[in-house]
């Protein structure tokens, strides 16, 4: 029972693939427009990825926090 609950909460870790893959999509983000505060998309997209990484990792941390092996 406890083991089952633990393995289910482990599934949250798959979410980590999103912030791992997002910064690597540069072939699709290689463009100037739209700019943000004058910064081309290619560059501000990575700022967004950093924010995304913090959000996703925080979510996974909170979801798996209670785990004790």
């Amino acid at each position, binding site marked *: 029972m406890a083991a089952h609950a633990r393995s289910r909460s482990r599934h949250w*870790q798959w979410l*980590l*693939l999103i*912030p*791992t893959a*997002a*910064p*690597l999509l*540069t*072939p699709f983000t*290689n*463009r*100037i427009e739209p*700019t943000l*505060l*004058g*910064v*081309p998309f*290619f*560059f501000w997209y*990575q*700022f967004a*990825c*950093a*924010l995304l*990484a*913090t959000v*996703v*990792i*925080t979510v*996974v*941390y909170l979801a798996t*926090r209670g785990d*004790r*092996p």
Partner: protein
Amino acid sequence: MTDREIEVGVFLALMTLVVLVGFGAARWRRPADPYDIEEWSVGGRAFGNWTIWFLLGGSMYSAYTFIAVPALTYGVGAIGWFAVPFAIVTTPLTFYFTTRAWSVARRHGFLTHSEFAAARFGSPGLGALVAITGILATIPYVAVQLISLQAVLRTIGFGGEWPLLAAVTLVSVCTFRSGLRAPALLSVVKDVLLGWMLLTAVLMVAMYGGWGSTFRIAAVRFAASPNPADGLLLPETGHLGFLTLVIGSALAIFAYPHALVGMLAAKDRDTVRRNAAALPVYCAALAVMALLGFFALAQGVTPADGDLNTVVPRMIHEYFPAWSAGIAYAALSIAALIPAAVMSIAAANTFTRSLYRTYLRPGASPAAEAWTSRWMSLFVKFGAAGLILAVDPAFSVDLQLIGGVLILQTIPAVFLGLLTGWFHRVALAAGLLSGLAVGLVLMWDIPKLDATGRVVAEHFGGASWSLGDGRTIYVGIVALAVNLLVTAALTLLLKAAGAAEGRDLTRPDDYLADAGDPYLKRLDELIDGLPTAAERRESVG
């Protein structure tokens, strides 16, 4: 007072403060036994959230990063931006992999990757191979930190060898005395100063026309340059080289000895995991620094003697108010000294644990280990200083690049090893050696070009291997692919032939162990009769 005097005055005042903090650090949370290698090199594995966060920022985001990355975006544009996605990718990986590494290291008392590899695959020889690769890759890394420091000192007017040697001596003495506590405390100072520097930089960009005009002018300058690969965006043929460099660099972070030291100092698993969530803040700081390369280009900042590493220090001198420039120079100097300290501790531990204790003096006492590591850390730092004074500094940069390719070859043992013990020890060693050979041969073949495309040196001119059609690929990834192929194929062969496998000393639940788990405590007592770190803290405080 002239601007220059104010700059130098602020710089010297802050550096004096730094030395005092570094010396005082030995007294911070003074351990019962300061001569235990665990206390000296990973702070007794008792650092909390904030300390670890600052320490990681201090040791990973070095002056070399803050000076070389803007120098790259200044010189070639979008390709230099690779450092930013690379830094971001490491954060979710840290959350998963470093937590496992922390647990297994905590339960077995590992301080280094090489000890883990030896235990996981039952082979001290493999551990020694990983250790030697790690040390060879780390020394030039320390050297490039000192080169960054030299670039800053030169811009302020302290040229020549003596200021550099004085700085290295001071940081060496601090590390010798205080161990990891010195860089951990100094990291806090550094981040405050660096935060101020970034704020000044953002205001500076706003005052001089904002990002819009910065990028417009930078685009015009790139268009006017003869180099077809530079620009605000990646060229059509640039994606493969860019992505392999991002992935290779991100993986290498999990193999460099110094990257592990900071994390092992954490007091429990949750500290590691919470830190992974907060690390992207540093990625954003690095991204802002990288964008400053475009600002320097747009404003027409020119490097001294064609050395691109002086672009950032010169931009600071020309555009910052004098007292803010002093703060920025201090921030960059400390940002060079902290990683140099952490890297030398890491390389020293690697030597002590995987070579000294395994081969030279089996059964060395913890005090003898700490003594060896402390002297070894001095040797590493002065070795690195000697390297840049004795040979052309540009050669150290090449060595650092080569070091990156080398360290990547330990990935199957130290990174994939965290997931699986399937590989055979002989296959791992053979894969590592063939990866090293392929990497060196490919880099031997890469000529060095100057800005106009003329060949200035025949060999070791970079780590981007040309595929002939304008595309390039990062050598480290090619070598790692060969390494993995050899490792997997040989493992299958050896298993089919029934060759004796090394005994895996780790158990699956070792990778999930947390502070306070009863087995951990029992193990500590069983192994060496030492009280656990937690008990020691109680007895002190």
